[in-house]
Structures are given as C-alpha cells and as structure tokens.
C-alpha cells in the first residue's frame, strides 16, 4: 500500500473510518460516528498512543476549510473576485476579528467608509450573522467582520481601523 492511500472502512455499530498514512509516517484517522460526532486521531510515527479530538459537524467543516486552503491565514480569510466584464473590476472580501481598540465603537464613529472606502457587509457574532449592519452598529468583543472593497481599500482598512 502506498503511503498516501486512503482507507475507508465501515465499522458495524460505530460508523465510518477513514485512515491514511502520511509520507513522513504519521497516521491520521477520522471517524464519523453514529452518534453524530466526528473524531480525529493523529498518531505520530513511532508513538503508541494517538491523540484525539472530537468535533461537531460544524467544527469539522471549519477544520476542513482550513485544510483545503479556503481560509488563507489561520483565522482571517480573504477572497478576491475578478469581474472581467466590468473593466477588470477586482473585489476583495476579507474577514477580520475585531481588536480590543474597536470594541464598543460604532461603524459611524470609526468612519470606516470615509477613511478607507471599504464597507462592512456582515458581522458574525456568537455564530450568528448580522447582514448589512447599520452605521449605528456597535462592535463587541469576539465579533468577526466581513469587509468588502478593492484590495487597496482592504489594506487601508487593516492599517487604519484594525491596527489603531
């Protein structure tokens, strides 16, 4: 069996198992259990006891996004879309985690549009999404903001709003 071969196995009463060995000899196993959870085990080469993490389907999907590269940085992601029909318009959508300095301020107060040109189109708060927040919207700790604009505007946003 080659090192990359992915084995899938039906375990009666337990669920489905996926297992593969990496080129470096570590083993990764994923179990979709009948109880609805997803367990991921990793076994380092030469070790005897694997370490395990149990995830809900949502958490597993998040991990999957990270692994497939859909999320560019560890916790902040960015997608650039090019519209060739509109004079090569390039729009970037970027997520930012709200820093302590911004907590408690409104979108209006921060003068996001005036200073950067970018727009906050959605805020994710406690796994719920607030689409199109009004100018009076107050940021809270733990919020993640989805910002849209041209790539320069996003850079300005990061420099002006996120860092200060």
């Amino acid at each position, binding site marked *: 069996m080659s090192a990359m071969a992915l084995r899938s196995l*039906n*375990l*009666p*009463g*337990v669920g489905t*198992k996926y297992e593969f060995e990496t080129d470096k000899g570590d*083993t990764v*196993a994923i*179990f979709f*259990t009948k*109880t609805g*959870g997803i*367990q991921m*085990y990793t*076994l380092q080469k030469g070790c005897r*006891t*694997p370490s*395990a993490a*149990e995830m809900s389907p949502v958490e597993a999907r998040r991990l999957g996004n990270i692994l497939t590269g859909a999320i560019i940085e560890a916790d902040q992601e960015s997608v650039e879309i090019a519209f060739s029909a509109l004079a090569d318009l390039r729009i970037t959508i970027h997520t930012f985690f709200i820093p302590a300095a911004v907590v408690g301020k409104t979108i209006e107060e921060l003068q996001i549009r005036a200073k950067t040109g970018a727009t906050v189109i959605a805020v994710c708060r406690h796994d719920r999404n607030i689409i199109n927040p009004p100018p009076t919207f107050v940021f809270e700790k733990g919020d993640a903001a989805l910002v849209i604009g041209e790539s320069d505007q996003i850079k300005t946003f990061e420099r002006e709003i996120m860092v200060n």
Partner: protein
Amino acid sequence: MESLIVALFVCVVLALITKYFSIPAIPFYILAGVLLGKAGGGLLTNNEVSQFFSEMGLIFLLFFMGLGLKPERIASNRSAVLTSGIIDLNVNMIIGFVAAYMLGFTLTESLIIASAFYISSTAMALTSLIENRKLMLRESDTVIWLMVFEDLVLIIFLALLSAGNQNLIIFFVKIIAVLGILYALAHYGKEFLISILDRDDELPILFTFAAVLTTASFSLYLGVPETMMVIALGVAFATTDPDAFEQHARPFKDVFLVVFFVFFGVTVDFSGGANWFVIGAISLLAVVSKLVSGLLTGIFIHGSALSGLEIWANTIARGEFSIALAVLYGSPVVGTTIAAMVILTSIVGSFMAKYSGILRRGLVSHSRHKALLRRPH
C-alpha cells in the same frame, strides 16, 4: 399505567445524570426497577401495559441487531475475527457453565447463565470506545468485530434455546424459509421500500413500526419464535436502506428498551432468599473470565498481553443481551443472578474502560522500572 409513568419519569432523571457523568445507564435503569419494585414497597408493579412495552423493547432491540448484521459486512481480516471470537466463546461459556453448575444450578439454568455470562454488551462496548476516544487503537477493531461475532452466536443460542422439544431440522428449515421469504420480499420490493423510506410524512415511521409488529405476531402462525423473526426482518431490511430503518425504529427502541430494563428490575427479588454467595461468585467470575479471554485474545491476535487488558476493559460489561436471555428463558433465580451480574460488570466495565490507559501506562512503567533494577551493574 401509573407504574409506567413513574418508571418513565425516573428514567428521564437517570438518563440525564448518567449522560452527564458519561457512565452507562443500563445498570441504573435495572437498579431503579429493583429499588422501586418488590424491594421498594411495590411502587412499580408489572402490569399489562408495562408487559407490552417491555415486549416491544425486546423486539426492537433484536430488530436493531438484525439491521446491524449486513451480509456484505464480513470482516476483511476474517481469521483474526474468528480466532478472537472462538477464544471469547469457549473461555467464557466454559467458565460460566462450570461455575453455575457447581454452584447448584440445573443443567438448563447453567446453560442460560453461561450464555448471559458470555455475551458482552454491544451497546456499552461501542459507546465506551467512542466516548473514551479509543477508536484508533488496534484493539478497538478486535472489540468491534468481537461484538459482531457475539451477536451471531446469540442468534444461534436463541434458535437453540427456543427450539425446545421441536424437531431441530424442521425448526431450522422453518427459520431458513422465513429468512428466505423476508429476504426475497426485501429484494424484490426494494424500490418500494426505499420510496416509502424517502417520504417525509408519517409513513416511514408508521411502516417500520407496523412491519416489526406484524412480523413478530406472524411468528405464532409459523411456529418460529418471534425473536428469530424480528432478527430475520432486520437482516432482510438491512439489504435496502439500514440507516433509514435505524433512524425510524430508534424512537421506539429507545423508549421501549428503557421500560424493558426497568421492569426487568421489578421482577428481580434480591430480598427473598437470594443466595448472595452465588450471586457474588458469578458476578466476580464474570469480570475475571473476560480477563482470561481478553488476555488470550491480546496475545494471539496482537502479540501483547497489554492489548488483552484493553480488550478486557471494553468487554467486561454485560448488558442488554444478557437480560434478554434472562427474560426469555430464565427462572426468577436465574434472572436475579443475571441482574446482579449485569449491574456489577457494567459498573466495573465502565470504570475499567475509562482508566485502562492509565492502567496500561502504569504496568509498562512498572515493568520498565523492574527491568532497570534487574540490570547487572
């Protein structure tokens, strides 16, 4: 009716508590039945309603077992499964039978105790593997397939025990005929069955319930025990869409089976004339005998006694199938003995399964330490 409502209420509370501490609920359901039944002044009494619920619980348990036995799911490592299964069967049946017979049970009683003694709780073993995050251990595969093997042996036990005085050949021909008919129905009616299961109204769940009950009641006409019939139905349905059937039968199984455990506890009488020495000896031996079979399996399959310890930890608990055997074929004394064994082994089992890792590490470091001391200077 009041008994049933009290029982259900107690079970909800027990389920909440046991889930919170992630310990198996089955021994506590039985204990609740024991404490609220004869021993506890008869707050719970068996009546027609509870009897019906209990019977449904048993039928749905066996239907579920049948659903899990997919014919194409034969292990890739057949010889390992066979070896571990045969070790487990022989060691535990022999120890269980000899112990029961020497402690004064009759031949038939000893046989039933030995069967209940042999068969581990599939539900508790699998839950413990998942909850204690042991699925990747190589011993887990052995345990999972051991449970499948035990299920298959249980079907043979049920057939043999319920054959009674009938001509065995005619009896088995009948069972095979029934299985054939159900299999053919599932095969030729596959599209129809799947079209029913795909609907999102009440039909899938209604159909599942009706199919199981009809099959069970048909057994009277055919002279085949209903236990065999519902297992056969499960096996036949497993060829269509077993996941959908499991999903639709689960609510029935979950509720009825809990009632089954509680009212089994109600029939148990620890107070009147229970021989504590016999009960204690069987329960302790039940723990020890799985240690023997576990160690042998570990050495033969994985080449390591430590692996055997892990297999032991996850297979100590006896549960639903032992109780089913007690209810179907056991006398009151046998029932009481099996009840005590289930309670003790499932509690010891859940504890060992949780701490087996620590036990293994402890033993390894201890033996390393000894080896260092013995090294010549």
